[in-house]
């Protein structure tokens, strides 16, 4: 049973992740295929919302993954700052674009769902607004990664930002809820909604699991790409130094 410290060795991680990745990707593909088949062809249309209810099957997992990936980033941030785990900042860097992508998917599907339901693409609904702010935080984190050259320093700076954001997300959610009830006392959107029919629940659960595996597989692949990018960087520097030395030896002392 490999422990977390064994995984700290990037070589070991590369080997394990290479073995794991096809299985995860395969399982994600199968689950997504089954889930989408059930969602599109088996699940009944909603008696109120009609066919548009099928958007939910992508929308809800995307929202859940946007939050899950941020939580993973916060744990990785602790890994960088407290435990100084060498893979933690790689994990964090790899998670940010995926989380941002799922936030965006959540917002876009929400807009397409909102048009037939509410008659408009966007309402300042508390939950939509919170996801929008989450997307902005993701984009800020990505911007900070790109702005700092040195990966070690960038990793620590981004870890601090991620944790500050993590403390802030519940506060933002709370204040947006407060703001929303203040401005929209009679929302068209019922917060709890009708209880979901089992014929819709099953495809939703299968798709949620499938998307989660997809996100984890993407995350693993992105981590591998980042590790290789850093290796290329180190090798390039070493090569430049070697040429430097050769050039020095060629010169008279």
């Amino acid at each position, binding site marked *: 049973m490999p422990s977390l410290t064994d995984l700290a060795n990037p070589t070991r991680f590369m080997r394990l992740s290479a073995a794991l990745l096809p299985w995860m990707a395969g399982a994600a593909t199968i689950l997504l295929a089954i889930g989408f088949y059930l969602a599109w062809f088996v699940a009944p249309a909603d008696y109120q919302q009609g066919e548009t209810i099928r958007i939910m099957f992508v929308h809800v997992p995307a929202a859940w993954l946007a939050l899950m990936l941020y939580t993973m980033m916060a744990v990785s941030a602790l890994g960088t700052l407290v435990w100084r785990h060498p893979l933690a900042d790689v994990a964090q860097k790899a998670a940010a674009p995926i989380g941002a992508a799922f936030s965006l998917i959540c917002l876009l599907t929400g807009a397409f769902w909102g048009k037939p339901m509410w008659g408009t693409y966007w309402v300042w609904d508390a939950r939509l607004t919170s996801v929008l702010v989450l997307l902005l935080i993701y984009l800020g984190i990505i911007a900070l990664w790109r702005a700092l050259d*040195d990966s070690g320093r960038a990793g620590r700076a981004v870890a601090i930002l991620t944790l500050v954001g993590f403390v802030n997300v519940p506060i933002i959610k709370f204040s947006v809820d407060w703001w929303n009830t203040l401005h929209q006392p009679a929302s068209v959107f019922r917060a709890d909604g009708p209880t979901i029919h089992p014929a819709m629940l099953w495809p939703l659960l299968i798709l949620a699991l499938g998307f989660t595996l997809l996100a984890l597989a993407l995350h693993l692949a992105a981590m591998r790409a980042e590790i290789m990018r850093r290796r290329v*960087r180190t090798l390039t520097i070493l090569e430049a130094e070697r040429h430097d030395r050769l050039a020095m030896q060629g010169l008279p002392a």
Partner: protein
Amino acid sequence: MALAVENLACRRGGRLIFEGLSFRLAQGEAIALTGRNGAGKSSLIALVCGRLRPEAGSVRIEGAGDTPAPELIHLIGHRDGLKSALGAAGNLAFAQAVLGEPALSAAAALDMVGLPHVADVPVGYLSAGQRRRVALARLLVSRRPFWLLDEPMAALDFAAQAMVAGLMQAHLDAGGAVLAATHGPLGLAGARELRIGP
């Protein structure tokens, strides 16, 4: 007290600057740190004062008790820590308040470096050499045993270099220690040379 550096390695931007560096600097001793550009003189100074994290090895101050190393060290780096908009005396008074352990007053320290007349002149108006002397006067306003100087003689003329050498000698005689990165001679009789890099 003694500054003990053991098996120190430094990596910056993926590049290994130096490794396996060990030395000891006791009170009353001086080390002239030499080496070609890029050998890691400034990096070593940054490591000793805790601004960089070592790749391997350790920097300790023996016999300091609970006092953290950065609080026993005076650093005069390339960046001189002076605010151009403030006067020389104002800059020194700020340094004294921040560093603690007050020794000379700002006016007396400026006297010692031969700049009594610039106390209220904004530092931005001074020449590079004068500015350097104001920065070095910081060593005199607070009492700290270890002086870490990065190119202390840069931009100074011969008279000023002799003056700075005198300040360092007085510090050594009073039981202090000096670690100075330098290209030229320091003008200290008992200074050891530590050459880093190839």
